[in-house]
């Protein structure tokens, strides 16, 4: 096998191994709780309904953006745990801008998207600046910023909230009709696929291109692989840390946008939370690769969707898939390390073998 195809096979072997292990461990939990293992898996692994497919694509879109935001940090060896806070601050800001409707139609949408990117970047940038000026670990500062984001948004939401008489939901002004992003119809269902799916695809392509094809991307990867070698090669590591936190936060800012412009049309107390943490798991599962992340996002969305009816059908809590998802993250980390070591040994043997032939020849 050529080195490239070996790498490909090993790359696929690891997540496959991790998934099998995760399914086994989840089965153990089910057995321990006395739940019907076979029936649960039969439901989860059945074919989704047409409506189900649409839901899966929609929630995968949001997961994908979140995971790419995390992956940008990972490629730099930065652990941006703050995607959660970044997307909520950004979604709130974008909802306020869109709700005000300063510009007509889609110009308003574009303005709100820009605001989201900007606010997300700034929120993450705080952690980047703290890291390079004061040496504060971005893990700690982004966790703190998540907490601050929660309270800041709750506080500001009360200030700008419009109260709808007869409802106890607080939310921002709704996005004007003309600025909403229309969904894509599929399977003749009334539910639609988010129009901003294309935004997620574009972000994925841009991520792949910048990381793999540009000098900037090379510097970023080099810094992530070895900070000492990066310094010796002339990379300004501090600058790279700030820039990648800004980029990561900017993409994080987009996470809530498909929801805002395709579903909720306002930011309120019921806006979906926890997307940032799912992003960490999916980025790990997808190995920070744009296609791998897409598959990971689809898998997580699929598990979520398929677990929903468990409660009604089998009286099993759908939270069981959260266990599966959590275990996947653990097993995938182990599996990647096992496969990586195996790959290194394989390659050293191959190199030694090739040189041996040369000597013999």
């Amino acid at each position: 096998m050529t080195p490239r195809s070996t790498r490909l096979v090993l790359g696929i072997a690891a997540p496959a191994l991790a998934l099998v292990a995760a399914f086994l461990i989840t089965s153990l939990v089910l057995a321990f709780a006395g739940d019907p293992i076979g029936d649960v898996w039969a439901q989860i692994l059945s074919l989704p309904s047409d409506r189900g497919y649409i839901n899966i694509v929609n929630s995968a879109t949001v997961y994908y953006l979140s995971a790419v935001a995390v992956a940008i940090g990972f490629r730099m060896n930065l652990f941006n745990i703050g995607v959660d806070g970044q997307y909520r601050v950004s979604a709130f800001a974008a909802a306020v801008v869109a709700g005000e409707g300063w510009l007509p139609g889609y110009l308003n949408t574009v303005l709100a998207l820009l605001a989201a990117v900007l606010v997300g970047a700034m929120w993450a940038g705080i952690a980047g600046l703290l890291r390079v000026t004061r040496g504060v670990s971005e893990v700690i500062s982004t966790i703190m910023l998540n907490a601050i984001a929660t309270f800041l948004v709750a506080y500001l939401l009360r200030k700008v909230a419009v109260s709808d008489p007869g409802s106890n939901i607080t939310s921002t002004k709704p996005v004007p009709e003309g600025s909403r992003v229309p969904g894509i119809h599929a399977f003749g269902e009334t539910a639609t696929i988010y129009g901003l799916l294309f935004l997620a695809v574009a972000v994925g392509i841009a991520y792949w291109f910048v990381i793999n094809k540009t000098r900037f991307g090379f510097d970023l990867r080099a810094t992530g692989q070895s900070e000492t070698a990066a310094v010796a090669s002339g990379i300004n590591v501090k600058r790279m840390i700030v820039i990648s936190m800004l980029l990561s936060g900017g993409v994080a800012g987009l996470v809530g946008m498909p929801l805002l412009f395709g579903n909720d049309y306002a930011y309120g107390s019921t806006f979906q939370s926890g997307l940032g943490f799912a992003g960490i798991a999916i980025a790990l599962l997808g190995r920070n690769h744009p296609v791998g992340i897409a598959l990971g996002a689809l898998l997580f969305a699929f598990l979520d969707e398929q677990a929903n009816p468990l409660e009604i059908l089998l009286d099993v809590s759908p939270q069981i898939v959260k266990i599966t998802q959590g275990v996947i993250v653990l097993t995938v980390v182990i599996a990647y390390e096992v496969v990586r070591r195996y790959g290194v040994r394989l390659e050293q043997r191959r190199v030694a073998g090739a040189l041996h032939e040369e000597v013999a020849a």
Partner: protein
Amino acid sequence: MSTLTSPTAEPTESAAGHDVVVRLRDIGKTFPGVVANQDVNIDIRRGTVHAIVGENGAGKSTLMKILYGVQKPDSGTIEVNGEVISLSSPSDAIGAGIGMVFQHFMLADNLTVLENVVLGAEKLHGIGDGAREVIREISTAYGLDVDPDVLVEELGVGARQRVEILKVLYRGARIVILDEPTAVLVPQEVEELFGNLRELKAEGLAVIFISHKLDEVLSVADEVTVIRRGRTVDTLPAASVTSRQLAEMMVGSELPSPSTEESTVTERVVLEVRDLTLPAPQGRDLLSDIDLSIRAGEILGIAGVEGNGQSELVESIMGMRQPSSGVVTLDGRDISSLSTRERRDAGIGYIPEDRHRHGLLLDAPLWENRILGHQTREPNIAGPLIDRGGARRDTERIVAEFDVRTPGIDTTARALSGGNQQKLIVGREMAGDPVLLIASHPTRGVDVGAQSAIWGHIKRARRQGLAVLLISADLDELIGLSDTIRVLLRGRLGETFDPDTVTPQMLGSAMTGAAS
């Protein structure tokens, strides 16, 4: 050479008497592409301080790692108290009564001495009054003067070292290895340490003392073993040898004839460093008032014992460290305020001393490593984009021209042997027409074949009119390649030597400050 029965000879019954506590026989250890130890034979006796000396990279630390169970030898036997034992972990070594005090202390500052000592050895005497009592006993018996209840953060360096020694004794060690223990101490503390060591040997312990400060070795050791290129040269009683003789044995007498090539030194100064001072976070400056200049076609060799400012000098010239004062000029242009990348672009090729940490992305393929450090230059880039094709073609060229033995350029750098990794780096740094080549320990840890190839490349660079700054611990290499040699001692550039007339002994003395 020795007045004793040489341990390399067949040990006789008398030499192998009951007082030999550690006997190493024919120890060999090979890493891919590097022979670290070969045919090492040492006897260490009860109640003595036994020093092991050798140049950097001579194989001292690998040998000690083998004795402490961190590395397994490929061949040979280790006998402790007459029994052949197999050590596969430090806990095996501790079980056999061998303890090691590392150069870098392993203490938790926010815990007390007692807590640090019992950490990991809770089962021996508990963690309370029993342990406190034992610590007091050991402290008194060996004159260590350690109070079990003070916080480690309140202790000075010397006291911390005594805590480390106490930790080892607490675990029952009868054979104590000290790795470069004086490197971190001031002279008074060194005297105190030597006092402690004499107490240890008076109590019948064996102390193994690793150092390259020869005068210190002679003042404390009973026996000295010299290691060169992974082999034991000889073991001598300290009383019968001078530091000059030891230096000679360390560097070897079979020096290659100094470079017979004609001088290519020109009048044009390429690199000039003036009044460069690099302060340390605390204590004396890492570099003080460095003045040096290198002309086109000249190789300036810097000799010095490791840790005297060599890495700092290189990193200051590369812009990786910020000196407090001084001017660096390259080809007449002041580059003092330029970034590392701008300096590289101005024409500096850089072979770093630690290729794994500074020279390579180990898990990236060779062609990506070709780009590293040259991200702003043809043929690696096309505008803001990476030129994959260009980089790959040029990597193929380097692999062919510099004889990098690899199955292909998609192989990761990690899979190559040290020598081939280094040849790739040399090829990369010679690309793009540099005017200055900085080569830091260019042949450290590479096999003999790669070594001579790299020497050839450095000589070729000199012929092409580059200025070369060569840092090396290998005196043969320095004398054989350099046009001028200067000695770096405690952050200051000292004497200038002519490689045609200098002997390794003269350099060795100047390096240790012994000759003055």
